[in-house]
């Protein structure tokens, strides 16, 4: 892993939170290399004991404008709770309307779930 170009960016946070290091590495690579997000930065969320990733999704024609999204990685073997999700929201500044939770599996499958605060009506 040390020879991968993403390693220098993440090495501090991988050492700080080894339990979620694998998920962070996998989600970071998926967003930057496969999904081609831009302006990607990595945030430290001590309240959730992990790092989160903030960046800009590539905009398609049907989007209303550029959207900055925050992704919080976690792995399938963990158990998370609503207090954990609430802590994720409050640790982020400015408070986002929604976050994405990226659940990773050991075979590198990643599933993303959009989590909003409260009930949100789906778009048309």
């Amino acid at each position: 892993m040390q020879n991968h170009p993403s390693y220098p960016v993440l090495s501090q946070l991988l050492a700080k939170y080894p339990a979620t290091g694998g998920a962070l590495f996998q989600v970071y690579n998926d967003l930057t290399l496969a999904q081609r997000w831009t302006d990607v930065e990595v945030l430290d969320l001590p309240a959730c004991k992990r790092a989160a990733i903030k960046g800009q999704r590539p905009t398609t024609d049907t989007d209303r404008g550029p959207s900055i999204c925050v992704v919080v990685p976690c792995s399938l073997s963990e158990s998370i709770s609503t207090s954990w999700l609430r802590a994720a929201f409050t640790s982020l500044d400015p408070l986002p309307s929604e976050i994405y939770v990226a659940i990773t599996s050991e075979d590198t499958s990643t599933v993303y779930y959009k989590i909003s605060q409260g009930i949100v009506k789906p778009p048309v």
Partner: protein
Amino acid sequence: MSLINQTSHSKGSFKSSSRRAETARVYAHPIPIIFPEPTYKFLGLSLTRPLNPHCTAVFDPLTRSAWISNSGDATLLWQRGFFGKGDLSRSEPSWLARQINARQMKGKGFTSEEITAKRRAERKQFKLDRAKAMAAAAAEAETAFNEQGRVIAPGIAPDGTRIIPSAATWKPTSASVLSEQSPLDVAPGEEEDIEPIKDLEHLQLSLQEAFFLVWALDCLTILHPETNMSFTLAEIWNTFQNAHIPSSVPQLNAPSPPRFDNPFLVSYIAYHHYRSLGWVVKSGIKFCVDYLLYKRGPVFQHAEFAIVVIPVYEDPEDQANSPFTLQNAEPFTWSWLSTINRVNSQVQKTLILSYITIPAESRVSPTILSSPACFAHYSVREVVLRRFIPARMRD
């Protein structure tokens, strides 16, 4: 099979016979070891040796997996048994092909990810068109009622044709096809001086796949990430059981105390059971289950069965003393079981509950955990779950 500049592509899962023959030729071998046709026999025994590719992988403790960066080995392990997954792709490593396609063909590539992206963009456009048509028809019906007091059917024009598009008849307009451009912007004069893209993707094997290739088939060697020395089987046995401990270096010492309900052992037993029966076993995270079983492989047909691994302790004391909280060891609630069953019946998969019995430490001494011989003491029992609707299912 190169995914760059392919000249023909199949529509969805309806393959032409030449395409099917090509797939059958590429994915002909179910395991990495090939048994060649015997050239001569002695007393009915074939004297040719099986061909073993001897692949190499590197263990990564943070992601708890084995990485294969050599593209020859990666292609071989994928094509002979569908082992592993590209870490930047849906299935086989195709990231480099997609990057090259994005440069050369600007969004007209034929890897499975590109075809899916195109299909999703078209469906999104169809939904927008349909929403617009519905809103316009509803507004028209409103004005007709307010002004003239007559009620018209909103979706039908006066001459009887549908205004609102249906999925079967909608065609993408040329504008929406052109708008599906790759986000990469290649300026006109750039074709000359392009540096080759470095392949940043690797094939990642889960611990279960790696152990199966090492122990059951003996066609894989795993290297230590820092020293590049190959692990012995005993070191692999210990390291994989310790992988759940968060660490950036492999933990080579035997787990203490050794436990029968180590999460790696329990999930490996399920994996080995189905693999050795000939199924192709892949991760089931997308369908809320542990494993998916394919009859021949993902490229042939969708998975028919979804496996949920349920560990059962022979002795409840072991569960009370356990340092692990294995998933599904507690009884399911009916609502959770119904949810998983619904999710899988929507995609036409049958749910199978796979009960793995964990032997009691009072009956079997944990010293037996020093080698894979301990697997003989576990058992796997399956229960097939199907939703039964008495009113409808009369045959």
